């Protein structure tokens, strides 16, 4: 087990265009998966961005995707709720299943699918409306009119996002007047308001200052258990702080995927160790 393959073998092979089977730790396989990715490929026009991705995402845990820029982490994340459909040139093959339901089946209603997941983006993107309306947006567009229901959801989501005490007195003010950190937590509140099965986070802290970042990280830790979180991050310390499992990706392929503690302290692959210790990437 400690016999590590020769350094840079895999990375060199990936660079050369070969498909390398990922090193997936048995702990991951032992968990109950909410999301199953199977043989997933994705092309932007002629350029292939994801190669034969196969990985289970454990239910109720925080899974981080790390890797150098352009490695396909965000693309993979955006494939989960089919945000890539918005780009005309994208083609895919392979499959993903959330709680057993196909994501890329022919009969799948994309709108319905997206309602089952919440998404938080790199740059906070509150809508041009009041704080309250931002939080209950997903319910509103689903046709929920009952004021009592909306108020309850709003409070619950804002409490869940650790924002309630800061904004409870100005729920009807524009969300665009909040600070950057508050805006990002509002986006998290919006993402969890409809009680999604999964929370997708695309570098949620990269535009925030350290204090706001630590608040969002605390929040992610609090959400663990209730929600399955799939988070893309550039920040290795962040991955080690908030995630249960980590997948290291390189040029559209998963290189190593295992428990965060193992991956960061004793990775199986030399390549992973080199990346984590900052020797490349």
């Amino acid at each position: 087990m400690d016999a590590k393959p020769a350094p840079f073998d895999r990375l060199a092979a990936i660079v050369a265009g070969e498909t390398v089977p990922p090193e997936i730790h048995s702990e991951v396989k032992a968990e109950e998966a909410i999301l199953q990715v199977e043989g997933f490929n994705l092309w932007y026009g002629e350029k292939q961005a994801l190669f034969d991705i196969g990985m289970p995402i454990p239910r109720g845990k925080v899974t981080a995707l790390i890797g150098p820029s352009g490695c396909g982490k965000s693309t993979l994340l955006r494939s989960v709720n089919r945000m890539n459909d918005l780009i005309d040139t994208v083609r895919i093959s392979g499959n993903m299943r959330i709680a057993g339901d196909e994501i890329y089946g022919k009969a799948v209603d994309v709108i319905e699918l997206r309602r089952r997941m919440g998404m938080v983006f790199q740059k906070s993107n509150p809508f041009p409306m009041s704080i309250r309306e931002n939080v209950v947006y997903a319910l509103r567009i689903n046709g929920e009119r009952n004021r009592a229901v909306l108020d309850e959801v709003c409070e619950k989501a804002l409490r869940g996002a650790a924002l309630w005490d800061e904004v409870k007195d100005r729920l009807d003010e524009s969300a665009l007047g909040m600070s950057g950190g508050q805006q990002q937590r509002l986006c998290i509140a919006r993402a969890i308001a409809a009680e999604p099965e999964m929370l997708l986070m695309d570098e949620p802290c990269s535009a925030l200052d350290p204090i706001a970042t630590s608040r969002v990280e605390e929040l992610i830790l609090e959400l663990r258990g209730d929600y399955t979180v799939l988070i893309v991050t550039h920040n290795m310390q962040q991955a080690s702080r908030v995630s249960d499992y980590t997948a290291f990706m390189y040029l559209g392929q998963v290189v190593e995927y295992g428990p965060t503690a193992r991956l960061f302290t004793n990775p199986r692959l030399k390549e992973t160790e080199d990346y984590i210790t900052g020797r490349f990437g």
Partner: protein
Amino acid sequence: MLARGEPVVWLTGSGLVIGLLMVTVLVGYVFYQGLITFWPRPVVALTTPDGRTHLGEVTRTDTFIPPPDLIPGLTGALRERAEAQTAREEGALGRRLLRTGNFELTGEHFRWVEDYLIAEGGESRPEWALVFERTTWGRFYGFPTALVLGGEVVAEDPSRIWEMFQDHHGGDHPAGAVLRVRTASGEEKELDLTEIVRAYPANRLGFLDKVRVYASRWNEFLTAEPREANSEGGVFPAIFGTVVMTLAMTILVVPFGVMAALYLREYAKQGWLTSVVRISINNLAGVPSIVFGVFGLGFFCYIVGGGIDQVFFSDKLPSPTFGTGGIMWASLTLALLTLPVVIVATEEALAAVPTSMREGSFACGATRWQTIRRVVLPRALPGVMTGAILAMARGAGEVAPLMLVGAVKLAPDLPLDLEWPFMHPERSFMHLGFHIYDLGFQSQNSEAAKPMVFTTTLLLMGIVLFLNAAAIRLRSGLTRKYTGSKF
């Protein structure tokens, strides 16, 4: 030096200065002329050597080069004065344009009086020279001799007449109330009190009295209907027509433009076809407005309006109801004219909505239309308002197409009134822009109409400014609401 960019600063700065200067001069001139028009001027009496006295207001002073045989043909004191003046003025003679009024007696409204004709003491400002503004025949200048109520002379002294006139003017006089006046050349005239709109002793007015006359004239200008082939009286129908037409146009053009821009930006697959459409729309903005007028006349008035007449108003044919120029067709024509402005502005506003916002909405499970309606449009609304403001400014100032599709010289019947069915989209209307053209270039009495050109221009600028200010206020409110502050 070039590297530091100072010449560029000067160059760009001077561009701005020249632009500002031109605007300031133009607006300043219009302001000045427009504001002094209604200020009451003194009345002068000028006695010429033929013994006639001309009474009136000086509206213009001027110099002219006399024809070569004029001065040699003069004699005595006349020649002396003329020669003295030509020596002073480098060969030119001065003259004054006197508004003499009394058209029914003299056959003229204005008269040039050369300065050399006036002897020492030949010019005076008679105390009791009265200025009358009348419902017909233009102004009258004269001296009161008697006030006759019910056939009985009740006053003969000027100050007593003036006092009693003020008491009785505007009142009800079934028995008849007549003011006897004598002109400067000695002719007698009886003026019925009901035909006098306004009268004042121009040379006896104190400052406050002048202000009162000034205010009363502005009041009439803004609220009354025109008189005397539009050269006197008010422009209320034109104000009303302009505002209604502009608002109707805005209401028509904004939804159309927004819909077109939404399809072009949000739904259409971007490619060469959308590029061609965009270029075409931009080119449409460069088509001369008169072409839109011709199109409006041919399509809206004759084809659409004619069709409506055939179907709904066939009993009134051959006189057209909708089949001729009207405020609805004018609004539609201008809506077409301003459509490119709205489309371009809206498209830019839509393009400026961050992709992250749309993605956020899609990620919440919103459909494309829900995203547009709840997120994209509110965010783009200030930009859409900008388009509407630009369209309004363009539409309010447009005249040429209106001449073809419904703006007329005189239309006292307003397009909105209290008469069933309250809205009369088929009615032709008055428009301030067209009014300016009509006063300035089509008026019989162009000297009298000219000052009104300035006041009307001033008014039109004021209205456009007001409409724009209202829209900008609305927009800044929306901007605060929907875009907020950045972190």
